């Protein structure tokens, strides 16, 4: 059963739109899958390799702007942004990695956080280049129906899942985890920690950039405040993985579904107004206290908590 779980999920997701879901439900599904891609990418760097990033919006935004600027500057389809973002985001990741990866622990986290903010300010101020706060609008949408966008992001998610699984089960994955558990020990066991951390960062960045490039094409509009957002992108990315389960294969997907649904539900209660952010804060505290390994990581514990399974005697 466990072995076939990925195929069953994929099959289910592949036929899901065929039953005629409303445009709104499709939108929610697309967002959830997109977030699971970003979550899986973040998980690779921060969950497995232990380098906690607070600035994944930097890579998301770079990917989004790669696609947007190909359209606005060169006049070609924003979909070329998907392959183009690989090169652009890798270059950015190498620069950011060169600066940040010499730092450890919380210092790395703070440095990445600032990277996201710096890129936002740059994008806002290079008006001639990026369009500044006006953002980039893609005037002719590729498809009116959402189903094609759905299948594209599903394919990206599938590819990301396979890529992450392959990396984690190979030598790279063991090296990443060794670096997470003890960087000095890893170094003395012959692991070039700087090199492998850079690889983790680049892989993670490219996958996040993919999601960003997709986002431009799907939403048809980007501006710096949206795609380089600290709380709406960087922090939500961390939340998705924390809620779902750090360093698990299915954690980011589970977290993405929960976070997207929760955001929609909370936003639809008008009485809350802007207080809806508070709920995410409370949720994060509850998760960290009761389910430190997330819903997937602490699944058996969760079942016990809600009384589905008797305590082991």
């Amino acid at each position, binding site marked *: 059963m466990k072995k076939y779980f990925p195929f069953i999920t994929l099959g289910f997701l592949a036929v899901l739109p065929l039953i005629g879901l409303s445009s709104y439900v499709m939108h929610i599904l697309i967002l959830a899958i997109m977030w699971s891609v970003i979550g899986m990418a973040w998980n690779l760097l921060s969950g497995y390799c232990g380098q906690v990033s607070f600035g994944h919006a930097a890579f998301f935004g770079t990917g989004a702007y790669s696609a947007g600027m190909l359209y606005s500057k060169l006049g070609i389809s924003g979909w070329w942004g998907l392959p183009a973002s690989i090169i652009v985001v890798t270059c950015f990741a190498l620069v950011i990695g060169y600066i940040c990866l010499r730092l450890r622990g919380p210092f790395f986290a703070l440095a990445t956080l600032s990277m996201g903010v710096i890129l936002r300010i740059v994008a806002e101020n290079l008006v001639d280049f990026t369009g500044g706060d006006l953002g980039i609008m893609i005037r002719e949408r590729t498809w009116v129906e959402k189903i094609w966008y759905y299948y594209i992001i599903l394919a990206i998610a599938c590819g990301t899942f396979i890529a992450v699984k392959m990396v984690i089960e190979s030598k790279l994955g063991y090296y990443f985890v060794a670096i997470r558990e003890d960087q000095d*020990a890893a170094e003395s066991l012959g692991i070039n920690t700087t090199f492998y951390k850079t690889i983790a960062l680049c892989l993670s960045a490219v996958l996040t950039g993919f999601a960003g490039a997709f986002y431009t094409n799907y939403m048809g509009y980007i501006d710096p405040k949206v795609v380089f957002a600290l709380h709406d992108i960087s922090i939500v990315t961390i939340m998705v993985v924390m809620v779902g389960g750090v360093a698990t294969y299915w954690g980011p997907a589970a977290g993405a579904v929960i976070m997207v649904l929760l955001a929609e539900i909370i936003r639809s209660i008008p009485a809350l107004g802007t207080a809806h952010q508070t709920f995410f804060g409370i949720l994060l505290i509850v998760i960290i206290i009761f389910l430190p390994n997330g819903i997937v990581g602490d699944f058996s514990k969760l079942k016990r908590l809600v009384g589905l399974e008797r305590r082991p005697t």
Partner: protein
Amino acid sequence: MSFLVINKVSRFFGGLSALTNVSFEISKGDIVGLIGPNGAGKTTLFNVVNGFYKPSKGEVFFRGRTISGLKPHQICQKGIARTFQVVKPLQRLSVFDNVLASAFLRTAGRGEAAKLALDILQFTGLFEERDTISKGLPLGMRKRLEIARALATQPELLLLDESFAGLNPTELNESIQIIRRIREKGITIMIIEHHMKVIMSISDRIVVLNYGEKIAEGTPQEIRHSPLVVEAYLGEAQSA
């Protein structure tokens, strides 16, 4: 050409000199004991050989080439592996995965690495514990896991930092057997140890450090009768 040459190595931390002008050589296949009171600079010397510290003065040569200034991972790739006094296992991984992670260094592909890892687990007597999460291992096992991980990088020189400390007599005997078998494989060993009986029985040569300086070097017999050593180290231990 000697196997490992430590040539006039000094290491300063600010104004404090942790190692002063230490020189000695190790021949291939030997077990060399490194002893001295607490704070004598033994672990600092390991950190210099292993690449965590650059020597402030002097150089370390391994098989005729200088290795001072190289990063720890490069030195490990050249064939020097070490264990840590305060054990540093990959806590959330199983014993097998711990050894596997370092077995990748000189093997091609996962299959080969897994085979090597299993061999080493057999060799160090950790085979039964291979699926245990290393966080939950008793100290003796964790010390042995450190040795297993270092062995998985297939070194020519193994630096053991207090691998016997805190072991009970049974574990101690097992560990001594393992060290002897490692030597039979042709691996040279430098070992820091406080347990005098152990160090005297397994070492071919002993180097004694005190306040960062080498005060004696020789066979266990010579060291036992050196008045300087007795004064600096053994005498203290007896009066305590």
